[in-house]
């Protein structure tokens, strides 16, 4: 795709934004978490993933249909 195509520029910008929003920024949690840094982050990440567990059914159905 030509590098100055507006759709690609928008896409690159959104990738930059979403990367920051999901992976950077300060984390404040009121839940009890373990104090080791990496486990803490895995906990936050898994919480986010598990919150969207409902979509797994749709994904599984898509996979079966394909």
């Amino acid at each position, binding site marked *: *795709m030509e*590098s*100055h195509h*507006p759709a*690609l*520029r*928008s*896409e*690159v*910008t*959104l*990738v*930059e*934004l979403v*990367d920051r929003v999901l*992976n*950077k920024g300060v984390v404040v949690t009121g839940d009890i978490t373990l104090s080791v*840094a*990496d486990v*803490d*982050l*895995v906990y936050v*990440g*898994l919480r*986010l*993933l*598990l919150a*969207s*567990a409902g*979509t*797994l059914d*749709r*994904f599984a159905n*898509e996979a079966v249909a394909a």
Partner: protein
Amino acid sequence: MTELADRILSSHGDLSAFGDARRQRLPGRVNADPETVERGLAQLVLTLIELLRQLMERQALRRMDEGSLSDDEIERLGQTFMKLAARMDELKEHFGLRDEDLNLDLGPLGSLL
């Protein structure tokens, strides 16, 4: 507010390297929800594998520089790393993961990769 589309301050060359891997490589899944549990677990697992791959490769390069590997060992290690990298690319493509997705923020320790 500066519109999001205008946040490119400078660009040179083909920007598709910085686009959304999912849209580029999996055209049939443009609207797929990126945060399924399966994809998230794949992300964690592949991140760890990528970490190990980088550590091992770095070690191999160091020993190659030192001259402490035989020609045969260098050849076999190189082949193994190449196959592993190819397999990782396949798995990343399957789950719609970019290189940047294979990273974990360890807080004060910085990023994993």
